[in-house]
């Protein structure tokens, strides 16, 4: 990176660090708008088709915004062999769109070739850790680049799995060299569901590995919180985000909203809220700009 480019990066205002998850209902409005959005992220699998309107729109957005690819279907934690056709489709998207980040989840989603289409939690054991790391190594090698791994919301824990999720995730980053996508909402949801201190999770994150943060909304179902990505970010999650930023410094942050998708201004309002917090608390790159 040249000196002048570096300075431009350092001087970027906080809103440049905040992105939104791009969803089809907002395509036309967002292309027409002069939105203060720093970057966009899409679900990789929504663009796995060979052609047509989704890829057409993604090309248009890529001309205007930095883009990240966020996968929901690689099933990195499954005992199944890694799906080569899935990796091939992902790789062709990566080559075509040159994303800023490529991510998937700390989860499993298929058994004996059957895909369950949910982000299912792993048992946090040494066996699962070794397996998951091997798979991240394979995927990173295949793609020829570093991936980010994201923590999921979970509702169950398993017998005989004594490792803390945060230690498991930190070990994945250490062993594979992958980056981490810290979903602050998921930390909160899991903390309530399993009764741990969400701040302890944030404290355990290797700050040099955390490359991205996700924020989203959850629903309440009886005694459990359920991650639906269908609401505004909750106050408790904003507090945890502030805690994370104070500790980690400025991290590119994304607002995700996948069900009951709201009007674009609602999403942009959430993004502005995140940018204000980065502006107030962020350090590192933003410090240098001050």
């Amino acid at each position, binding site marked *: 990176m040249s000196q002048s480019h570096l300075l431009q990066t350092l001087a970027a205002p906080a809103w440049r660090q905040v992105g939104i998850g791009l969803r089809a209902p907002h395509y036309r409005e967002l292309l027409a708008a002069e939105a203060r959005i720093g970057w966009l992220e899409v679900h990789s*699998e*929504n663009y*796995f*088709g*060979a*052609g*047509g*309107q*989704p890829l*057409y729109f993604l090309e248009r957005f890529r001309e205007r915004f930095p883009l990240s690819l966020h996968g*929901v*279907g*690689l*099933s990195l934690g*499954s*005992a199944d062999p890694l*799906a080569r*056709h*899935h990796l091939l*489709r992902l790789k062709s998207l990566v080559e075509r769109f040159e994303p800023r980040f490529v991510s998937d989840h700390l989860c*499993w*989603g*298929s*058994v*004996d*070739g*059957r*895909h*369950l*289409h*949910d982000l*299912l939690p*792993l*048992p946090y*054991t040494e*066996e*699962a850790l070794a*397996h998951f790391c091997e798979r991240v190594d394979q995927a990173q090698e295949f793609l020829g680049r570093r991936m980010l791994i994201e923590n999921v919301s979970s*509702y*169950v*824990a*398993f*017998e*005989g799995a004594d490792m803390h999720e945060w230690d498991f995730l930190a070990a994945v980053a250490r062993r594979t060299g992958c980056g981490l996508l810290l979903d602050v909402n998921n930390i909160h949801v899991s903390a309530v*569901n*399993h009764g741990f201190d969400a701040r302890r999770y944030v404290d355990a994150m290797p700050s040099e590995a955390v490359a991205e943060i996700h924020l989203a909304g959850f629903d309440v*179902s*009886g*005694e*459990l919180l*359920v991650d639906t990505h269908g609401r505004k970010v909750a106050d408790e999650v904003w507090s945890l985000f502030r805690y994370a930023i104070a500790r980690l410094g400025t991290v590119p942050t994304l607002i995700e909203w996948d069900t009951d998708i709201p009007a674009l201004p609602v999403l942009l309002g959430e993004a502005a809220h995140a940018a204000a917090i980065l502006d107030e608390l962020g350090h590192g790159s933003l410090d240098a700009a001050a």
Partner: protein
Amino acid sequence: MDLSTLQREFAAALFVPDARPPIVILDRAPGRAARFAVYRNNTLTNLTAALLDVHPVVARLVGQEFFNHVAGHYAHAYPSLSGDVHDYGGHFAEYLEAYPAAAGLPWLADVARLEWAWHEAFHAAAPDSFDWSALSAVDPDAQGRLWFMPNPTLRLVQSPYPILHIWEVNQPDRSGDESVDLNEGSDRLVLVRGANHVIAIERVDAATYALLEACRLGRSIGEAVAAALAVDPTAESGAMLRNLIAAGYLVGFEGS
């Protein structure tokens, strides 16, 4: 319990509504069953939503409650075999065809076929444009041995029922008369995606349908024309071919 066994037990219990949750799940408040139920619900909701996304007309025809019910059975009967949920649902039409509770709606499976064809056309690769000068360079006597390439977005659907009319009156922007006379007759439909990404659906005659179907099956153009003439001996094959190329149904050839 090893990872592979845990995942098998977890998945096996997901699709059986009354199955007990795997005992490897810790039984902490609010209880193993309540915790596992979140995953059971998520999985079914996600798969049903994917099916609904592709089959909104089927859902409108049978109502949301019936659709959810059949989607649940389908999820059990036809596992998703891809991590990309857009690949899910390709057997829904044949499942509906044999679904006892839908026996009174004999056209429903063909409407599902039309919706799946639309979905495939929407995501298919874009075509090249036809190279007429390359064709004219081929010795006319050798042209019958060429393979004509259908537009990659082209899909064919036929039904003894007027499924296009059924599909049209169930579009979200449609207003007015929603009645369809099932005696209107059969449909032979060609779907193809235009440059504006809109899927055009056209009714074609039996000879044209037979020719396109033969091309899709990889027959040479000579064999495809023979198939068309077998259906309609009066068909004028040269004009038919020119029209199909002009319409963007056939977009190239190989084998010269």
